[in-house]
Every structure is written in C-alpha cells, then in structure tokens.
C-alpha cells in the first residue's frame, strides 16, 4: 500500500510543467556541468572554461530571479521549492559568480590549464542548490555529500602549496565522520518516525519518550553543526580556511554555510521541533558557546584568514538565535531575519575576501606558492589605495554590526527576534560577543590608517575588479541605509 501511494504521487509531480520550471535553475547548473565536461574534451583553454561557467551561473541567476514570485511547489517528494530557497539560491549564485571572477584571477599565475576547478565549482553550486530546495532526508544527504566531496577536491587544489595535503586530509576525514554521524542520526529518526520526508510527523507524543528519536535528532544536528562550524565542532575551520586558496575559502564561508543553515531551518521548522524542550536547550547552548568562544579565539589572531574563520564561527552563533522560534507566526519573521542576516553576512564576506585576494595577488612574489596575509600587511592601506581601504572598512563594520552598514540592520533583526522571544541569555551573549568582536575588528580598521608606513606601491587591479569593488562599496552602504530594497524581496 505504501509503495502504491508513493508511485502516483511521483507520477503526477514529474510531468507537471511548473514543477519542472521550479527546479529549472538547478537543472541548468547540472546541464552546465555536463556541457563543461564536453567543452574540456573539445578544447582546453583557461578563459573559455571560466567564461562558460560565468554564463551558466548568470543564466541560472536570471532564471531564479524571475522565479521569486512563484508559490511553493513540491517537485517529487524530494524537493520543495519556495521563495526562501529561491532567494538563498540567488545569494549562492552571486557568491559563486564572484568566486569564479576571483579564481580566474587567482589561477592565472599557474601555468597548466585548470578546467576541473570550474567543474568542481559548479558541482558545489549544484550541491548547494539541491540542499536549499530539499524537503527529504535523501535529497539532504545527496546535496550534503555533493558539497563535501567536491570541496575536498577544491580545498587541496594548489599542488605546490605546502598546506594542500594537510587541508585536504583534515577536511576529508572530519567531513566524512560528520556525514556518517548525520546519517546515523537520520537512520535513528527514520527508525522512529517511519518517514524520511520533512513533512510534519503525525503523532508526536510517543516520540518525546523514545530516547532513540532524541539521540537521532541530536546526531543529525551535530552533523549540520560541523558544517556550520559551531563551537564544539569548529576545530577544523581555522586550519582549512587558512590552508585553502582564498576563493575557495570564500566559497566555503558563504555557499556551504548558507546552504546548510537554510536546510537546517527547513528541516526543523517543518517538523515543529520546538515542542521538544531539550532540543531548544541544546541549540541555545551551541549558540552561546559559538558566540563567546568564536569571538574570544579571534581576539589576538594575526593571520587574516584565520581571523575571518573565527569571526564566521561567531556569526553562525548569532544566526542560531533565529532557530529558537516560540510560535507559528513568529516563524515567518524568523525566516526574514535569517535571510537578511545571511545576505548581509555574504555581502561582507565577498567584500573582505575580494580585498584579501587582490592584496595577496600584489604581495605574491614570483617564487613562493602562497602568501599568508597578516593584519600588518594592511598597514597604511587607506593612504595608498582609498577604494580598497573603504571596502575593508565597510566589510569590517558590517561584520561588527555598526550602523550605516547592512550588518547593523541584520543585527537589528536578530535582536528584535530575540527580544520578542524573551531569549535573555542569548541577548546577553550577543552583546558580550559583539563587545569582544569590536576589539579585533577595530584593530583591522586602525591598522588601515597607520600612516608612519613608508609609501608602498599603489595597488593596481583590472577593470572588472574595479567595478566589483565599487559595486560592493555602494551596495554595502545603500543596503545599510535603505534595507527595504532587500526587505520586500524577503517578506
């Protein structure tokens, strides 16, 4: 009886035109991957593959922009596309576009042609697309694995860099353990609920008692928490962020985090989890720890990429506040705040990493393979190249949540969510955390203004980068002062 019902459900979904249209962006990316493989077979040139990837991403982006108005459609029981997933997919495509632009700059300095880099990149975007739209544990599993395995390849990509092997191994072993833990969690949940899809479970009562369900949910959360690098499971993040090439670190900081968080929200909200008390307690614990420990670890950090790794741990901690929903109508506001905060976080990360990759490119001598930027390498940047310094300031202020930047409005959303939900512990942790965070963010800003530096070479960059920088500066300020431009998309 079970199989029959499942059959006609899938039959009706597959053929429908609007279902097909709903997941069209993901499909385009998939075709893109196949076509780029064919392209590699036909003719291997660096510019060609980069251009092709960009067109695929732009095409997917445009398509999902006009899909924004679509109402939620379930495509087979695996995927459910709603406005939230579309908006997140737009963010993912945008960051992937920026990553391709930066990496084509990054790879230019190596002699061989790097076609498979772009294929892996598209695979990551596809994985994220599947994750974002998933409504079933199986699709979650597929997206998750697609993401992690292709990241292992990308993380250790630069052959000569001395950290490549170490980063690759660390990421592989730990993400494999995390995914198996998550799978075990899913198995335990499945054994108790009997259904793998995110649909709300009918009888909740007996689930409260069974410890298997509770352990299963915990293990599932641990797997996701690993990917979001929340505190007890954050150990891998600084090393991998430092070891990986800069565009890949940016990809990891934006795409993988956003996708994982949205899928976590979809899964938890649809299963009305907030009924179980100790899960809420667990999430509060994770959030408070990540906020405080993430910021404390970043305090005296000198390597800029490690510092950004710790700050992203703290930001995921802030974001977890959104999960603690007290009631049904509160959930819509939770989605709004999550999306706005993610948009602000992504914009800030894109800007700071653009600056880092441009500075890295300048400082890189002919010989050595990779250069580790420390905060002092930004010394006196304001007097040498105003645009880059302005971009760093806006990114750092947006991370710190100071007005005039998008980050402040994001923090405002979070604070209003927390105050209406009376989550006083989290509010206190947020305030203390952002107090600590200020000290290292301001250190970066003040280093920019140090003027007793002898006048170093002025940075030169290509025209597209110039456009990129100005676009980020303008959007950082304009979205900070007029957040409604993004607001009505989310609502």
């Amino acid at each position: 009886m079970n199989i029959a019902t499942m059959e006609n459900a899938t039959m009706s979904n597959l053929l429908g035109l609007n279902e097909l249209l709903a997941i069209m962006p993901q499909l385009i990316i998939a075709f893109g991957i196949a076509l780029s493989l064919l392209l590699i077979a036909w003719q291997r040139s660096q510019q060609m593959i980069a251009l092709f990837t960009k067109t695929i991403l732009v095409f997917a982006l445009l398509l999902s922009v006009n899909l924004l108005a679509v109402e939620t459609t379930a495509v087979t029981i695996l995927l459910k596309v709603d406005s939230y997933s579309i908006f997140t997919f737009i963010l993912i495509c945008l960051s992937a576009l920026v990553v391709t632009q930066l990496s084509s700059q990054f790879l230019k300095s190596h002699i061989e042609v790097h076609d498979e880099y772009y294929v892996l990149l598209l695979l990551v975007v596809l994985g994220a697309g599947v994750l974002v739209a998933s409504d079933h544990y199986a699709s979650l599993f597929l997206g998750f694995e697609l993401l992690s395995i292709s990241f292992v390849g990308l993380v250790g990509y630069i052959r000569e860099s001395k950290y490549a092997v170490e980063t690759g191994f660390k990421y592989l072993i730990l993400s494999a353990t995390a995914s198996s833990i998550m799978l075990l969690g899913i198995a335990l949940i499945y054994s108790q609920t009997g259904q793998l899809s995110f649909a709300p479970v009918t009888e909740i009562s007996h689930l409260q008692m069974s410890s298997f369900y509770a352990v299963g949910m915990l293990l599932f959360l641990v797997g996701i928490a690993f990917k979001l690098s929340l505190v007890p499971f954050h150990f891998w993040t600084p090393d991998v962020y430092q070891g990986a090439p800069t565009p890949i670190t940016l990809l990891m900081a934006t795409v993988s985090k956003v996708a994982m968080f949205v899928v976590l929200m979809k899964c938890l909200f649809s299963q009305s989890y907030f009924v179980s008390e100790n899960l809420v307690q667990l999430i509060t614990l994770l959030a408070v720890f990540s906020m405080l420990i993430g910021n404390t670890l970043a305090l005296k950090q000198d390597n800029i990429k490690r510092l950004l790794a710790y700050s992203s741990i703290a930001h995921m901690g802030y974001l977890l506040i959104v999960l603690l929903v007290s009631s049904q109508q509160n959930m819509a506001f939770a989605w709004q705040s999550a999306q706005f905060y993610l948009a602000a976080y992504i914009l800030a990360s894109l800007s700071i990493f653009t600056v880092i990759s441009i500075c890295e490119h300048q400082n890189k001598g002919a010989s050595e393979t990779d250069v580790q930027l420390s905060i002092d390498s930004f010394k006196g940047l304001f007097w040498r190249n105003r645009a880059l310094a302005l971009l760093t300031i806006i990114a750092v202020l947006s991370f710190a949540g100071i007005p005039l930047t998008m980050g402040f409005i994001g923090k405002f959303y979070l604070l209003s969510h927390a105050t209406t939900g009376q989550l006083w512990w989290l509010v206190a942790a947020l305030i203390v955390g952002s107090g600590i965070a200020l000290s290292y963010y301001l250190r970066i800003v003040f280093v920019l203004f140090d003027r007793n530096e002898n006048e170093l070479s002025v940075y030169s960059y290509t025209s597209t980068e110039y456009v990129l920088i100005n676009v980020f500066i303008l959007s950082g300020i304009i979205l900070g002062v007029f957040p409604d431009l993004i607001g009505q998309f989310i609502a």
Partner: protein
Amino acid sequence: MMLTIIIFGLLLCGGFAWFMEGIKQNSARWIALGSFITFMVFFAFSIMNSPQSFNELQLFVRIPWISTFNIEYALALDHLSITLIILTFFLAIICVLVSWQEIQDKCGFFYFNLLASIAGIIGVFCAVDLFLFFFFWEVMLLPMTAIIAIWGHENRHFAAIKFFIFTQVSSLLMLVAIIATAYFYAQQTGALSFYYQDWLQLDIPLHLANYLMLGFFIAFAVKLPSVPVHSWLPDAHTQAPTAGSVLLAGVLLKTGAYGLIRFVIFLFPQASQDFAPIAGTLAVVSILYGAKMAFAQTDFKRLVAYSSISHMGFVMLALFAFNPIAYQGAIVTMVAHGLSSAALFSLAGMVYNRIHSRDLNDMGGFWQSAPRMGGFALAFAGAAFGLPGLANFVGEFMSLVGAYPHYPMLVILAAFGLIGSAIYGMVLFQTSFQGAPTKEIADLSMRELMISGSLLLLLLIIGLYPNLLLQYSMGAPSL
C-alpha cells in the same frame, strides 16, 4: 526640511573639503569654517522666524524609512535641542580654529571627520524616531573614533578602541530596550512604532518600565560619564588631538545628558522616580570621585577630563531631582561646562603646541612670559571651580538649590565637591602658570586670542545674564 538640509549639507561639505584638500593646500579648513558659519546662521535664522513656539517638540519632517518595522525618518526640535545645537555649532567653529595649525598632515580627511561627527551630533539632538536616534547615536561615534585614532598622541589606538567599545556595548543595551518598548507598544496598540510621541502616551507596568529605563540609563550614564563607567573619558581626552578633546568634552557629553532628559526622565517618569535615589548617589559619587581623581593627576588634559566627570555629576543630580529649578540649573551647567571645558582643552592644546608636553611637572611660571594666556587660564580655571559671575556658578547654584528639597544629604555632599573643584582648580592653575618660571613660552597669537576671548565673553554673558538661556526653558514641563 531645514534640519535635513543641515545634516546632509554638513556631510557634503565634509566630502567637498576632503576633495578640495587634494587640489589646494590648506583649503579644507577654510571650507570647514565657512560651512559651519553658514549653517549656523541658516539654523539661527530659520529658528528665529519660524512661527511655532518651541516649548513643545515641533515636528519638522516625518517620512517612512524602513517599512518592515515602520520606522520613520522623523526630526523635531524644542528649546533644549535648539540650545544644544547652537552650542554644537559654536564649539565646532572653536574646533576648526583650534586645529588651525595643529593638524598638518591629512587635514582634508580630518575636516571630513569633523563635519561628519557634527552632522551626527545634530542628528542625535533632533531625532525623534528612536531607531533614527540610535542610528545617529552610533554614526557620531565613527568620525570621533577616527579623529582620536588617526591624529591622536602616543597610544591613541588603545584610547580609541576603549572609547568605542564602552559606548557601543552600552548602546547595544539601549537598542534592546528600544526594541522591547517598540514591541510592547505593538502588543498594546497592535501596530509597531518607534515614534517618540506615541511612546509618551504608553503606560508601561512598573516592573517592565524599570528594566527598560535601566537599559536607556546605562547607555546615557556611560556617555555622561558617571563613576562606575567613566574610565574611557580620561584616556580618550589625553590621547585625542585638541579639536577632538574640545568636541568630546564640549558636545559628546551633552548627548548623554540630553538622552537622560529626553528618554529617561520624560519617557519613564515613574520608573526614574523610583530609581532617583540611586542615580543621585551615583551623581554625588562621581562629583567627589572626579574631584579627588582630578587632584591626583599630573597630566593637564587628564585633570580637566576628571573635572568634567565631576561637573556632569551635578547635571545628573539636578536631573534626578525632578524640580523645575534644578532642571534649568542642569541646562545652564551643561552649556557652561561645554564652554569652560572646551576653553580649558583649547588652552591645553595651546600649551602643548608650545612645549610639546602635557605633564604639569614640565610646566611652571608661564605667567611671567605669557601674561595674557595666564589671565585667560585664571578665568577658565575660575569657571571650572564655579566662580560666581561666570556661567558654571549659576548652573551649579540652581542645580543644588533645586535638588536640596529632595536630597538634603546628597546636596551637602555635592557641596563638598565645590571645595574639591577649588583644590584641583588651584593645582591646575598654579602648577602651570605660577611658581618659578621654568620655560619661556610665546603669548597668545591673534587666533588664540579670538578663541579664548569669545569663550570668556560667552561664559561672562551667561554668568551675568543667564536669562538668555533660562527664558527658553522656563516652560519646562512640570516634572
């Protein structure tokens, strides 16, 4: 409409000054001076011939800004904010004059920061939508921190970071209080609003109002430095350039006092009345502690910084006395302290330019070689310790007379602060200007004479004829 022109006009002039500095050397300071004067005259004229009587808040502009939380861009003025805005403009001109020779490198960016912070401060004084108030409250911090961090003295980074973190963390508490009140308003009346007038009609149950009031009070107590959270001020002052100190002491402390009046005493009358004894003791402790610490200092600017902690203690004591006389006394003390501490800091700047040290032990006997500067120093030190005939005395006298019926013991302790202020005033004046002449310093130049002369003239006018200020605040709402 006029206020928006002023705020964004100042920002534009800042950008223009920064841009022009690149083209022509030393043009930025003329542009800054010109813009301050024109905007001040423009503001004064539009206030003069505007029909409304400013006893109540007169709305100037109210347009929707962030519709998801229906936050509006609303600006309004009443007597208190007009007085403080005019004080801000005057001190801004003093800042430009004081840093005429002092700021030599990157002065385009310096004047941009100066104009931006003045725009932020004016925004704070006339914002009526709580979110907009918080927005300006944070925005005015950025240029101020930049001024301290870039043009400051030896360990300026530490002072700038400490200044920023102190104010930022406490204003986050205020943000939580703002949001909680807004959502409480939404519960009461259905619609979410951040508008100050709507909040005034709100009657908040006492247990909630206490917490909300505390959230606001802590943010303003940090800004108006009262004792437990004052330690950012001495560091910020010793490291800031002269213009920074004048701006910081002259105006930024007043935003704290303004916030106390507008958003603590008027918004939560019952809760602040219960809280008043604690606030009173805090005020008296900061008066006495400020005076004692000032006496112990050997750094000129650090001594003046602790003295302004002591003076602002009088303002807090007066405000929490809920008495019309004390309210007027608080306003006069605010304006008087703005002028006298700005004068003392510009004096410190002049001495620093001549002997490149702020340490009192390096000074001595300057009166011999700089008689005019000695005269002005005596007058400003006199204002600092409340010499009658100068503005501070009127403010302190009215504050204490007004506060006496409510807290007899506290006022008597505060009166000991008068002795304390006399002691540190003497130490400040005598160690630097009297005693055996150690160094020969040049007397006041024309520009410096203009600065100190105008400040002394204003102190005398308010000291001898304070009705200039008082007839406006006569109609203070009966507390």
